[in-house]
């Protein structure tokens, strides 16, 4: 029977092992692999354009986009700053607003019953439809954009956090009740930590949504000229058939989105690293 046994780790460094070692350098691979995918994608794109002879005003070649990215950088950079300002303000408001509302709901069942449907209403109200109405009454264009982007980013945070706040281990709830924890103590010391993994999942979603929210809002209600954000530049480039610039602006939005995602993922890891399964490597 023992010949069926297995002898564990007497590491004889072989070529295979060396390769595995390399592959285990996750930090590096997490950058390299998507980059490789990107390169494959770019080559496919470029080949398609070349082989089918697609003119640049339909689909520019990747290199054209990069060139435009560089030459138009001053314009794009100004626009990016404006979009980023809206995005991050909206995200911040959504985090604060979503989390606080979720806390309110956790504290008062009545508030939840009375107001949750309206949170849903806020989410599903098509901002593009109400943006024109908002323009009439809002103090400034920026305010309209902010409201729109906020409305889109708000709900994922709220909904996930509500779900998280409800997921507290019943045994721990008992413990807290036993020791006469006040509602606010239960919230602070038990429900909020439990809700964290859900909250960060919501944050990951909301980050991207705040960005598209602000872009969509800009599409319908954005300012022009020196206050123009990326969406305005995209529209303008589209109207003027400046397709390389349109793609460059799209690229910039996309990169921004990925950057926001990396940021929110990093925050997640930071918040959960000490104890949650999703952020911990299993101790072997």
């Amino acid at each position, binding site marked *: 029977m023992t010949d069926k046994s297995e002898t564990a780790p007497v590491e004889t460094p072989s070529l295979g092992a060396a390769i595995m070692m390399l592959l285990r350098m996750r930090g590096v691979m997490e950058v390299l692999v998507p980059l490789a995918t990107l390169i494959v994608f770019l080559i496919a794109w470029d080949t398609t354009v070349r082989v089918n002879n697609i003119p*640049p*005003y339909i689909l520019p070649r990747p290199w054209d986009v990069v060139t435009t990215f560089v030459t138009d950088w001053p314009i794009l950079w100004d626009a990016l700053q404006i979009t980023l300002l809206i995005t991050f303000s909206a995200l911040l408001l959504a985090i604060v607003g979503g989390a606080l509302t979720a806390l309110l709901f956790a504290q008062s069942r009545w508030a939840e019953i009375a107001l949750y449907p309206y949170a849903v209403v806020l989410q599903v109200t098509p901002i593009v439809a109400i943006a024109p109405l908002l323009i009439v009454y809002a103090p400034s264009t920026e305010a309209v954009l902010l409201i729109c982007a906020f409305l889109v980013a708000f709900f994922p945070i709220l909904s996930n956090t509500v779900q998280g706040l409800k997921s507290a281990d019943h045994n721990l709830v008992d413990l807290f009740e036993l020791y006469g924890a006040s509602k606010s103590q239960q919230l602070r010391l038990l429900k909020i930590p439990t809700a964290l993994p859900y909250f960060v999942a919501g944050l990951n979603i909301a980050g991207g949504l705040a960005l598209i929210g602000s872009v969509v809002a800009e599409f319908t209600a954005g300012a022009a000229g020196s206050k123009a954000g990326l969406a305005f530049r995209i529209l303008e480039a589209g109207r003027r058939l400046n397709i390389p610039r349109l793609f460059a602006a799209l690229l910039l939005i996309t990169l921004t989105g990925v950057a926001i995602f990396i940021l929110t993922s990093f925050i997640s890891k930071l918040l959960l690293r000490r104890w949650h399964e999703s952020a911990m490597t299993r101790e072997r």
Partner: protein
Amino acid sequence: QELTSVSFGTGWLAQAEQGGFYQALADGTYESFGLDVDIVMGGPQTPMMQRLAAGQIQFMQSSTLSNLDAVARGIPVVSVAAFMQKDPQALLAHPDKGFDDLGDLAGLPTLYLGGSGFDTFFQWMKGKYEGFSDAQYAPYTYNPAVFIADPDSGMQSYVTSEPFDIQNRTGWAPAVFLLADYGFGGYADEIVALQPLIDSDPDLVQRFVDASIIGWYNYMYGDPSAGNALIQQDNPEMTDEQIAFSRQQMLALDMVMWDAAIAGGLGCMDGGRIETFFNEMVAAGVMTADVDYASSFTTDFVCKNVGADLFPDAAAQ
């Protein structure tokens, strides 16, 4: 007889401003020219120029400035006919403001402009008048309520379109400033095609242009009901009153029968006007001087007084 299939893309939802094309389709004019025409309705953001460039449609409705833009990007578009001798683009203001010149609107804190308006005629206005600035810009989302609610605002509009609804709902008629009256000289309602098509099948282009011209004569000066019915079929929201208003405006403001059309018939273009317009746009910074504006149009297919017999002559009027 074998019909040739062609698609014609419009710049907006079906409306009286496209009446001639619908009329030609409805009353069989296109068919009698051997054409099976499919009118592809446009709308906000519909990328008709890309579809033309991609070969999905053969003709599209466009305006001088868009053509120049396309040429600037290397799209070989060529305008072959122009039905609106005056661009219907106008600015509106509240009537009680007492404005009587386009330049007066510079005093308004807010102008609701579409993005394309901002890119083009607003740049031109900034050059022509003192006091217009980017800070006035507020996006126009084709909902006039914003303008109605704010007496200190102006708004972009089609002279044939928005004033009707505004008067209808509010009971007051806005002050209208038609840009063409202040020297904004581009054509609108043009038919454009790609250069390769013109080179390879000039006959097809000619037939489409001719049929469209006849359609326009019939629509404007004959019985428009067939065209209107088709418009309403494509765009059921279009009311009889709105259509009647638009058509009336086109007649009253001499939008189709003016300038070059008087001599050459509907659809005729004046190359000199396009050059002037181009130079003004360059001066306004809307485009660069190196654009080959001359390649953006040809008068080969128009100004031949095709269908002129359908125009009720001055005596008959």
